[in-house]
């Protein structure tokens, strides 16, 4: 994009805000967000990311699921962490997601619409900017 003016920046912000909100609420798309900070990567987040892409390929879900990355959310003891957003289900964060857990998430959560036992973590703090 070319250099922006103030108006363009404001327009972009409003546009993106609506887009983010849309993704959250009326959501047609499922999102999988992998924590890719140094702590996550050290704990194997790259394998986790690869495993998601492979598993989604295998289940032919590539077009329905958006895989994104983000930084450290603070749960370093439970890395790799993955946030899963499925429309109509509560948003949850899974901890210690290795290749085996990835398969379980894809089969049980994304396809079977069930939460996984023993892997859910709580978001560590209130998000101050969203509200």
């Amino acid at each position, binding site marked *: *994009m*070319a*250099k*922006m*003016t*103030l108006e363009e*920046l*404001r327009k*972009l*912000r409003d546009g*993106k*805000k609506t*887009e*983010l909100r849309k993704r959250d609420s009326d959501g047609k798309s499922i999102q999988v967000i992998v*924590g890719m*900070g*140094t*702590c996550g*990567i050290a704990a194997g987040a790259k394998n986790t990311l690869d495993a998601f892409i492979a598993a989604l390929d295998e289940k032919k879900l590539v077009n329905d699921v958006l895989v*994104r*990355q*983000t*930084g*450290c*959310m*603070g*749960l*370093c*003891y*439970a890395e790799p*962490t993955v*946030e899963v957003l499925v429309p*109509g*289900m*509560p948003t949850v964060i899974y*901890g210690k997601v290795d290749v085996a857990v990835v398969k379980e998430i894809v089969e049980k959560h994304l396809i*079977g*619409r*069930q*939460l*996984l*036992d*023993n*892997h*859910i*973590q*709580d978001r*560590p*703090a*209130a*998000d*101050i*900017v*969203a*509200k």
Partner: protein
Amino acid sequence: MGYNHYILVCGGTGCESGKGDEIYRNLISEAEKQGVKDKVQIVKTGCFGFCEKGPIVKVLPEDSFYTEVKPADAAEIIAEQIIKGREVTRLLYDKGAKKGKLAVEDIQFYQKQLRIVLRNCGVINPDNIDEYIARDGYAALEKVLFEMKPEDVISELKIAGLRGRGGAGFPTWLKWDISRKEKNEVKYVVCNADEGDPGAYMDRSTVEGDPHSIIEAMIICGRVIGAPYGYVYIRAEYPLAIERLRVALQQARDYGLLGKNILNSGFDFDVEIRLGAGAFVCGEETALLQSLEGKRGMPVPKPPFPAIQGLWGKPTVINNVETLANIPVILTKGSAWFASIGTETSKGTKVFALTGKVNNSGLVEVPMGTTLREIIFDIGGGIKGGKKFKGAQTGGPSGGILPESVLDTPIDYESLTRLGSMMGSGGLIVMDEDDCVVDVSRFYMEFCVDESCGKCAPCRIGTHQIHSILDKIAHGNGEMADLDKLHDIGKAMTKASLCMLGGSAANPSISTIKNFREEYIEHIVDKKCRAGKCKHLVRFEIDTEKCIGCGICARKCPVPCIAGEKRQPHVIDQLKCIKCGECFKACKFGAVLKK
């Protein structure tokens, strides 16, 4: 298929011991009994970080947060909430709060954390500037460029009460104001991302997770003080952070948020990355500036302060990553809001890298004034393996080790200094009964001996002397007079060193001598190390009564120095023993004794 409700039962160690598992099983059997098995899914989760009020049960999508739940409550939760859709009010943590209004201003938030600096970490994709912009990114810059005068920004920061997060806590507004008032065409903004404390990684995670917040704050600073150029001094050991920062800088340039004539405001600013080679002393601002100039990283006397005469002799504002990350939010949400968080003298939040013998290690951001007990036992979930807490080390090699008795002190800059420690950059290492304070002090002093730049004598000689005395005590050759010597050398270093590396290097030793004096005396008089860390003071022996002769200790011994016939008591050859403790760990019968 699909469920209407989800019940999350905390499966953390704290809640588990409070019958969490029984609650979980009761909920499942009740759901079945009351015929709503298909309406609700019941799962166990990791720790919710509120162990004090455990066991915790959370019901989604209502987000009902139940505390101190008993197994007998299961039937009511199912009958009321899942079937009739009514919350079980008596179990709610925050009975007064209106639903869905767990507001930001409400610092009594159950999790005790509040994310200002880390607001975007773990939420946005750091490689995508649009996501940052969507979360009010660069909105503060807009304000500063088009609505506010530089003085207005300074007064906002003054009201907010933001102080430097690098350790010393100097008021940020004052630093900016001094530079702003300097008459000079060339000024610089420097971001200190040379995070060197062992065990600290707050700044790395912030740059990795939200690089644009740093860039935005630097542009704002440049505008306020009248500097056209900025540097980020970041250690080369942080390749991912550097890469993310590079991408972010390029995206900001492409959008015209960096470079000439930013957003047509007529203001020019650009940022360059400079890599540090990993010297601890380069986190000290004057040494950092020397290193930036291409010289050997050694501190120079202050004054003149960098704000007046810094990089290449020009006025330079040098702020730490965490300080900068606060600035955009203060300007968008207002100084009054920021000033409402924290204590009288320390406003806002502090990020800690919580590590050591704690169950939930991680990156923690809490309002100033939170107690160490809350951080370690609620957020951190207590000590690993149910062991006993010994001390909390704040501020890395510059800080002290705080004992159990002060865990309830609300922490801010002043209270930590009063306790003989310091805020430092935010490393927080938890120690349990298996850690020895002499050993830990020696470790930090060894670090300081290595990292002392050698320019001034108090630090160069003092660190070495303290280290050798500590070493002597750890070897069982200490004398009582050594304690006073340690204290005196430490005080001299604190007073006479050129920079804070030497000025604070004695803190771990001085604070442990004060807070854990009896352990030093044990080492010196009784020649004993109760934690078993000082190898020269430990002896492993086998209790012939208890030993059944299974031979596992002999197999684990790396030397090997354990001998004995099968089914006969074994013996350790004390001359060969290297005191690694493997036999002690391996024995299932408690027959190996640590003396």
